């Protein structure tokens, strides 16, 4: 897994770490039940404060992506893949709804829209 922090980003550092760990989980670089680096070793590696990494892990735990066992460490939650899929699913739905609204405005039919979707999907 790679975590790359930008000091000039508008996003706070803890947020960047949280997002990139989620990415690593999605990509399977951090499989369910695998152990994350300790808060302290991550802080030392990235040269950020311990409070920053602690906050990232707390956010991840609040959102259900990891569980922290006091004295042992932090682990990727077993259901995290499903959680992320659900989140992505919601994003897909939202984007499709946006496309549908725009399509209606210019009078595209459902068939037109499906046809366009096929072309774009197969292009990539």
């Amino acid at each position: 897994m790679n975590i790359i922090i930008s000091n000039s980003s508008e996003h706070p550092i803890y947020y960047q770490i949280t997002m990139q760990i989620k990415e690593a989980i999605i990509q399977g670089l951090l499989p369910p039940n695998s152990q994350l680096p300790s808060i302290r070793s991550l802080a030392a590696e990235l040269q950020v404060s311990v409070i920053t990494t602690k906050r990232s892990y707390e956010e991840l735990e609040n959102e259900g992506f990891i569980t922290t066992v006091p004295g042992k460490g932090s682990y990727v939650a077993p259901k995290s893949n499903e959680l992320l899929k659900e989140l992505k699913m919601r994003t897909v739905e939202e984007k499709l709804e946006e496309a549908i609204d725009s399509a209606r405005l210019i009078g595209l039919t459902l068939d037109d829209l499906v046809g366009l979707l096929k072309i774009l999907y197969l292009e990539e």
Partner: protein
Amino acid sequence: MDIAVNLKDVSKRYDDFKLENLNICLESGYVLGLIGPNGAGKSTTIKLLLNHIKADSGQIEINGKSYDKSGPSIKNDIGFVLDQDHYYSHLTIRKIGRALSPFYTEWSQSKFESYIERFSLPFDKKISQLSKGMKMKFSLAIALSHNAKLLLMDEPTSGLDPIVRSELIEILSGVMLNDKKSIIFSTHITSDLDKIADYILLLNGGKTLLNEDKDALIERHAIVKGPKELSHEVSDHAIGIKKHKYGFEALTCDKNRFLNDSRLIFEKPTLDDIMLYYTKGESRC
């Protein structure tokens, strides 16, 4: 939750300077950065923590103990790096190591020697022959060789080049892997703290201007830059403002108020920015 350092309403007066109502509550396992201009009271604070001077009022507790009752036990657990010579300068590094060992119950000669090697210091040179950077590394080697729970450093990097400063930060990062260690680090080179500090205390003229978690501090402030025409509006909600011929720059803790104005540019402040604006301007936050 272990508290490494607890200062309550500590004050110390000199003829022309007064350190007032200083409060520090540092949990074990964290780094506190003490910043402020020269003469702000940073060294006085470190001296109070080392019991080199006594407070006029207030309480000081280190690892739950007070100097009145447990002086020697506290000193055993503190490692320090000060910006001055305080070791016998005619002795060699090797000899000083041996001379110090009876003073600390957990002195480790092997740890000391391995730090000296790691810092590439010459064992058989006298302290007086070492460069500034080498003296700092030597003090650091001592501070790290007796299992100290608290590291106190007073301007350890002043006068040192960025390479040595960066090496120090790396070493301290390694120390902080242990959650039973704590560090208080005073400096006017705030960029050193941008990386490693968990908490920041800003002193100016003996008074505490800021005392909080570094991330929260940086997040709630923003540098705002914009055209001269907007400077009046912004200055009412800024800690300080710099106007020049072609525009202005200010530090605000209320950036949401201005976010929608596309004529303004926002940037994340550095600790340096925060220190400069707070010590120069009046706070409106």
